[in-house]
């Protein structure tokens, strides 16, 4: 039984998400976008901080509404014995428990993986922690930029010759969440084949290391420490961001001399293609600073979008660096499903960012936005757990459901 048949490849899979802030809820959302029934465990006594950011009204919190597409909400007070008892019954009715609370927090509630296995032997416990759930440094905690710093990403992002500043501070949670979602689906396969559940113990910093894995592997092979190097590329030249009109920037990458010559033609400087400093890849590579200076001088007065379109028309890969305004104003993203309209639990219709995939046939429907707190209490407690009216009311009165 599920609340609604939305279709999708994970239809029939139920996920209990004891997840807060960003990485955990993002993993939950990806599973929901594939058709899983995701039920978020919430309580007014321990709100997801995302319900509190950006205002005082927890039902109109911009971060929360931007995130929890097709996620259901049940209230359980985890400080209440009766609440925990109900949560245990929900674990028995779920395929996956996804948790990104602090290391050890779920165990303190009597819900370690071993304890959950007693409740449901084939449960899949997906644990998302900064450094994994145990081990010598497992106690450490941090935020997305901490993952990126420890995981080796930050050290490799920076302008040449300056302090490596890393990716934008927001980067990291969602990649960690995606890695967790993949682990969850792999565990579903294992269970489908063998009947066996398991714990998937994700380390967010290791998920980040996967993004620089080729650099780590090259270091293991050569002993040569990888360095941040701006936008330099050993195989493509030119390769980088070049200025455009009104503060714009264009990304430009040429694979081979023919593409470089085509780029020079579009830029109106065919002489540059024959300049002995730049005629071959090796020359461009060796004279990179001079090359980039020449190109920057030429691109600076052009409109970024127009110049990139003309370059692409000649087979040269060029795109403007998109600002938030460019992203929001993109007709393409509004029409191709990158952005979706959903109806939130609070009744508002709202655009949200959709998944990166389309499926044919049987793509999961995405119609509902983020839920209000406890919006699906009736479904969970009455339909799934079969409480009678008196029990249900008593739990609400006692605060177990609050």
């Amino acid at each position, binding site marked *: 039984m599920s609340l609604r048949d939305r279709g999708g490849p994970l239809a029939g899979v139920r996920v209990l998400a004891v997840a807060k802030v960003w990485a955990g809820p*993002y993993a939950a959302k990806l599973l929901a976008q594939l058709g899983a029934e995701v039920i978020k465990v919430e309580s007014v006594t321990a709100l997801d901080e995302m319900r509190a950011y950006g205002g005082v009204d927890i039902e109109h919190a911009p971060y929360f509404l931007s995130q929890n597409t097709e996620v259901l909400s049940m209230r359980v007070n985890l400080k209440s014995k009766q609440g925990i008892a109900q949560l245990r019954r929900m674990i028995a009715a779920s395929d996956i428990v996804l948790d990104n609370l602090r290391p050890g927090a779920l165990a303190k509630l009597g819900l370690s993986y071993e304890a959950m296995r007693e409740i449901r032997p084939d449960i899949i416990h997906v644990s998302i922690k900064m450094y994994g759930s145990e081990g010598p440094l497992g106690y*450490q905690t941090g935020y997305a930029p901490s993952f990126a710093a420890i995981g080796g990403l930050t050290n490799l992002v*920076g302008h040449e010759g300056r302090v490596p500043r890393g990716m934008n*501070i927001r980067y990291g949670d969602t990649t960690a969440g995606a890695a967790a979602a993949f682990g969850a689906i*792999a565990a579903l396969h294992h269970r489908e084949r063998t009947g066996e559940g398991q714990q998937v113990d994700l380390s967010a910093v290791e998920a980040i290391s996967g993004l620089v894995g080729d650099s780590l*592997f090259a270091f293991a092979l050569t002993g040569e420490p990888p360095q941040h190097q701006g936008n330099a590329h050993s195989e493509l030249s030119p390769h980088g*961001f070049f200025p455009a009109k009104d503060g714009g920037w264009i*990304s430009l990458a040429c694979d081979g001399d023919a593409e470089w010559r085509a780029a020079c033609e579009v830029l109106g400087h065919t002489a540059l293609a024959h300049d002995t400093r730049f005629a071959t890849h090796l020359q461009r590579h060796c004279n990179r600073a001079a090359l980039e200076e020449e190109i920057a001088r030429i691109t600076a007065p052009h409109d970024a979008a127009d110049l990139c379109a003309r370059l692409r028309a000649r087979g040269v890969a060029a795109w403007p660096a998109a600002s*938030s305004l460019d992203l929001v104003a993109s007709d393409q993203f509004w029409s191709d499903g990158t952005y979706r309209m959903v109806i939130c639990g609070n009744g508002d219709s709202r655009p949200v960012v959709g998944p990166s995939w389309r499926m044919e046939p049987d793509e999961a429907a995405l119609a509902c936005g983020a839920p209000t707190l406890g919006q699906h209490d009736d479904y969970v407690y009455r339909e799934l757990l079969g409480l009678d009216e008196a029990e249900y009311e008593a739990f609400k009165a006692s605060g177990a459901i609050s």
Partner: protein
Amino acid sequence: MTALTGITVVETAERVCGEWTGRLLADFGAQVIKVERPGGSPTRLYGPHLGGESAVFGYCNTNKKSVVISLDDEAGRAMLGRLLERADALIDDHDPRWCMQTGFVPAGLRKRFPRLVHCQITPFGQHAPDDCQRAFPINVAAAGGWAWHTPSESDPADPPLMGAGRFMPDYDTGLDAAIATAASLLRQRRTGQGQFIDVSEVGVQVSRADVVLGRALAGDDEPSHSRRTYDMGGPGDVFACCDGFVHLVMLTKAHWQGLRKLMGEPEWTGEFPEDWLEFQCTPERVASFREQFRPWIARQSRNQVSAAAQALGVPLVPVSTAADLIANAQYRHRSYFQELGGTCYPAVAYRMTASPVRLTSAAPGLDADRGEVLA
């Protein structure tokens, strides 16, 4: 036994994004057959090379098999067709023109192989205009918005940054493609039916910014051309110490109290209100904090000061180098690096109690498995 044992995936992908998708599936025990053009996948050309082998190719293609098939001729295309007849999934990352030329277009494949899960990765998805069908990772990072906003507190005079290394967007794309493909393979187990999956590389970048961008989409936040729209404010940043760099996040009163204790309560910290991070975090205070914190942190050693900070509840962490990670006690404990043929490979970010991931074979030599695959 691993989770995807028994599943056969054919990979015609020739870029890092598609190869990474295949590797993620191969990690879990899927048999991934890499179909390479005569001469080999273009990714074999990416440096650095050791003993003639590309490190990038070596990283992205563990646990796979290789067979060379020329799709320029009828015999080769027939051969691929026969492989697909017994495959569960196909991973490809070519543009529609290549698909037309080889005859492996999505609609045709669906008709011929209704049980096949076909994952096709392109920069903007299948329905994008012709000139949007070929992009390098730097273009994907540009079009998806992260480059514009990287690093935090970007100076408009500095160029945007594409990320770490040459392929960062490819790895994020591979994750989403593997998620969608694995989910679809679960559906295939249950229904016997295939699906066509159309993955947009730029869509992945946009999805990774969901809460930041979502607020702008809905008008909660003003979208703009500012380089700082994704920033959070606050004093957090990378700081130089005596043997490298650390990263500090500071958001709460407790963080501030912990940091003061860590520094031995220096006098200048008394100028800051206790709750300045939550309620009085002005740009002037941020600048003043950084100015006075810098000389202190510059004398510390990155790993020691990070451990001491963590003990006080302060999210101060080392900016790890590659060597740091290989030596990292937690990485060792979790066996993040796995040894294969005397070489240390980054493996996977999860430990799984029932179906642990093992790297079992290095990236295949070109056409190494021809006999076995075409038998």
